[in-house]
Each structure stands twice: as C-alpha cells, then as structure tokens.
C-alpha cells in the first residue's frame, strides 16, 4: 500500500475526532432509540456515530413508517426535513445509502436516518413528499443525479438536467467526470433539441385548449413531444 492509499492519512492515525460541533444535537438519545426499537424491532438495523452525529440505519421496507412515526410521535416531532440526499461509496462492496437529515424545531434536536440499498439492484424507496413537501425537489434531484426511483412521488422528473438528457445519472460513481458522450455528440444533441418542446403537454393545461391553437404550433408541439432528438 502506498502512502497515498493509507486510509488513516499521514500522521493522522488514531486522531481523536473531537468535533467542535459537539453542540449539534446529533447523538441520538435513548428517548428516541428505545421507543423506536420497541416499535419497529429488527427494522432498526444499526446506529453509527461519526463526528458526534448519529445515523440510524432503517430497513428499506419499514423506512416510510419509521419516518412517519418520527414526524408524528408527540415525543419525537421531527417536523423539519433539513436535507435528503444519497451517498454512493467508491468501494463497490459498501451499500448505496439514502440519507435523511431530520430536525425537530420544537425540541431542537437532529437525527440522521439512512436506508442502505443494494447499489447493483434497482434503487427504489418510498417517497416522503407526503410527510414533508420540501422533499419534492430534493427527491427529484436524487432521481436526476442518482437514478433513485421514489414510489408515490407526484412529479418525478429530472430537475437540474434537462428532460431528454440521455447520458444517465451524473453523480453515480460509474459516471465519468466528463460525461458519457463526446463533446461533439453533446453539441449535436443540444443543437437538435426543440426548445418549444419544454412546454410539456401533460404538465400544462394548455393541452385542453390544444384544438384552438394555431396549426403550426400544434404541429410543433405534436412533433416535439418531450423534445425527442431527431
């Protein structure tokens, strides 16, 4: 093993990780863990603490129920979804993780909930838009960047990349930094795209008035569809 692959880092072996963020209410207390384990049993897989912040791993099938309980239980009341994201490790043997950063504004407490998924299989979890509306765009971003499918999401479309983006999900580790297609192919697709096709038919009620539109606009809308590259 060369020095640059030494996992502990030069001179940092055994460094005690005393985080200056100790005031972050991150270590999950027994008042949360005990009732959660009692209620969900084996679905609560393990708790990992790093830098004074705990992550509770929850089995995928029970995740939505656990999150709902965390939001609604009068002793927990995690009413604020701080962030929702994914982590894929460079080490392919480690699972793919869904990460929910929860916060209780009323109790001033934080909790990180994780769902471990098999990175090789289909990535699919239940949507939490019904619990926190703020998850809407966050889940769309996770879908766009990682390809995670959120069951029950009201409007699961790409958000940062365009709808017709063909190259995959950019934040996956298998995605090359410069993209899958050559610069020439990317330019060709960009020039061939029909800008008007961004008025996607299903999301706009103009569809109801379709018959009244001028013929040339009808043709452009019909031909473009969702901006298929021709």
């Amino acid at each position, binding site marked *: 093993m060369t020095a640059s692959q030494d996992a502990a880092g030069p001179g940092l072996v055994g460094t005690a990780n005393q*985080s200056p*963020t100790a005031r972050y209410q991150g270590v999950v207390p027994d008042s949360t863990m005990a009732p959660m384990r009692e209620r969900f049993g084996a679905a609560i897989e393990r708790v990992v603490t790093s830098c004074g912040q705990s992550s509770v791993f929850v089995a995928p099938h029970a995740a939505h129920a656990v999150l709902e309980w965390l939001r609604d239980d009068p002793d927990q009341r995690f009413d604020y*979804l701080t962030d929702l994201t994914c*982590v894929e*490790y460079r080490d392919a043997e480690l699972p793919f993780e869904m990460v929910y950063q929860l916060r209780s504004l009323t109790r001033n407490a934080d909790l990180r909930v994780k769902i471990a998924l098999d990175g090789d299989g289909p990535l699919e979890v239940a949507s939490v838009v019904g619990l926190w509306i703020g998850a809407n765009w966050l889940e769309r971003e996770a879908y766009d960047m990682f390809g995670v499918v959120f069951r029950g999401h009201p409007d699961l479309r790409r958000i940062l990349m365009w709808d017709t983006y063909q190259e995959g999900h*950019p934040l996956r580790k298998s995605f090359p*930094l410069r993209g899958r297609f050559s610069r020439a192919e990317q330019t060709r697709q960009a020039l061939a795209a029909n800008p008007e096709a961004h008025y996607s038919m299903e999301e706009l009620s103009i569809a109801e008035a379709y018959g009244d539109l001028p013929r040339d606009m009808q043709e452009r809308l019909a031909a473009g569809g969702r901006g298929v590259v021709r």
Partner: protein
Amino acid sequence: MTRLVEMQLSTPGVDRRGDIRQVPLGVQRRPSESVHNDFGAEHMLVNIGPQHPATHGVLRLVVELDGETVKRVIPHIGYLHSGFEKLGEYRHYNQIIPLTDRTDYLSPMANNVAFALAVEALLGVEVTERCRLLRVIACELSRIISHLVWAGTTGIDLGAMTPFLWMFEQRERVYNLQEAWTGARLTTSMTRVGGLMADIPDGWEKGLREFLREFPKTLREVDTMFSRNGIWVGRTQGVGVISAADAINFSLSGPMLRASGVAYDVRKDRPYLGYEEFDFDVPVGEHGDIYDRYIVRLEEMFQSVRILEQAVDRLRPGPINVADPRLVLPGKSAAMSDMEAMIFHFKQVMEGVRPPAGEVYFGVENPKGELGYYLVSDGTAKPVRWRIRPPSFLNLAALPQLCEGALLSDVIAINASVDIVMGEIDR
C-alpha cells in the same frame, strides 16, 4: 416583532360591479377579488426567463394565467448546472474551496467559511481565536452585501431605482475591503482548512470601522424610503404569504422561515464560530409576506453591524492558522530552508489534507438561509460525497405555492422576495 406600518393607503379603482371607488392598498388584497377575475377566457401561458433581469439569474418560470390571476407557476431550473458536487469528488479539500465561491456568488466568503468549518468538524480541529473572529467578520460582511443586493434588486423590480444606487455604493465599500483582504472581489477563496489564506492587511480594521460608522446611515435612508412608501407597502404587504406551518413543511430557512414567525436561526440554535458570545437579536416576522421578509432582512443588516462592531473590538494579534503542519502549509522561507517544512509542504500540495473516515453535516446561517455541507470521507484526500444543502433551492421550491392566486405582477415581487441565487440552486 410588531408590524411597523399599518396605513390605510388607497387608490381609485373599479369594483366588481364597475363602480368607481377607493380600493385599499396593502391590506389583505385578495387577487381573487381582482376586477379581471371573470374573463371566462381560456388560460394563457406566459414564459418568463430564463434570460430576464426580474428572474434574478437564469431561472425560467412558465406561468399559467386566468386573465391576470396566476393559476400555476412551473419553475424550470438547471441552466447554470456545473456539477460542483461531482467535481468535488475529484479534488482535495482545499481545492474545493474555490468551488464554494461559485455557488452562492453573492456571499462567497460565507461559503468559504462554511466549507472550512465542515472539514474541520470532520478532522476534529478547532481554529485559533483570531481566525474565528475574522471568520465571523467575513460571514457578517457577506450577509450585509447579500442583503444589499437583495433589497436593491427587489426595489428595481418594483420600480425604485434610487435606493439601489445607494445600496450598491455601500456594497462597493465592502467589496473594496474584501479585495484588500483576499485580492479578489467575487471569488475570494479566503479560508483554508485550519485557518485562513491571509491575515487582514495593515489598516484594514480602520476601513471596516469607518464602514460600520457610515453604513447604518444608508440603511436608515433605505428604511425611510421603503418602509413607509405607499407603493412599496401596497405591493408587498399581504402578497406571497406563507404560514409558519407551511414554511416548516417546505423546509424553508433563513429570512424566508423567520418572516413567517418561526424563530430559527442556526447562529442561535446551533452556535458555531462562537456566535453565542455575541450580543445580537434575531428579527422574526409575523405575517410571512414580502414586507415581513424585507423587514427581517433590513433588521438583520443592523444586527450584522452590531456583531461586526463586537468582533472588531475583540480582534487581537495572534496566529490565524492552527499549529499543525499536517493541515497548514509552512511559510515560504521555512519551506525553502528547512527540510521537514519542505516535506510537509510537498505532502500537503501533492496529497492534500486527509480527514479520517467518517461523515459530518455542518449547517451555517448564510444570508439566503441554512447552508449545509454534508461531507463523507473514506480516509482519502478527496471526499466520497460533498453534498451542498442549498438554501435557495429549497426556498425556491415553495414559489409555486407562494404565487398561486396572485397577480402576474406579484410573481415578480414574490420571486424577488425569495432571494435566490441560481449558482447555488443549480450548482
């Protein structure tokens, strides 16, 4: 906080029966009572942006209108997507700092500080006293310049040109201070893991004190021009309202959350950089409308001045970097003459700072809201995952709800009140 202005302003208008009467301004104006309500025609689509000054960047809004009433707003984002999070996975921690400048480019120094804090949390390092105070100064100056841009451009969106120029004059003074300190006006990159790129130059404190003396005068002028201005009040009060419960549910943060009456400020509730030692208040709104967001941001600037005065008074000479050669580059002369220093210099430049394996979420109160950096390290010099929790992304997600039922002209005001910066939303 009580509402400062309760005025009965009115303008001649036409009511629903067609009679001319005085229509009140700024008091719970309900767009559904607009005279244009019952056109009965088909809905119309209006495309705003992506290249439009009132969208504050490359934001595209597709607005569905019934007469002049907004039925639906569909934001399209991503025009400025640069893949910062992906790029970060290929860079050393100190090399990521220039990327943070380019996210929220209206408050680059605050982003630099937030990122350094996140990495230091991962390493378990506490910075020196002087560094801490200088970082507080950087954060609060960023808050001021960001809010000045907000108030100035929002004024322009609503037709007020003059205060914009006053505010940009003051903003220019902060940019001069920023330039004197970091050598850059926009892309400051002024922090390093474990410290700062450079100490402030001689006489810089004097310039800051001078700014702190002059600046509140301008703020009071802005207050005079806006807070009781009939047009401003009429166009902002009762427009773009979001309740406290909805604001929490939408994960709003910063002035957007506080204007709705939720007293959450990361500096008070999760203190970092020793904010608990500073004497300052957190302004909280009541109505959750544009006017309250304006008042909250205006008051935050006054509070930032208070924090800055305290910070500059406490500033004492001392080191700005931690005394750890694994984190901080040795001085030039040491690297040229001392063998060990040269080795550390080489390892730092070639291999970078390497935190132990672990993960941390670090949230700070940025001008736009809570900026969070979530870092996952596997023990190598490059993060496995660098997640930016972008405050304006989440704030913008509430825009369709804020605009529903408003008038088309209000969409511009509401969009301005969210205080977005597209570099951060699209990343």
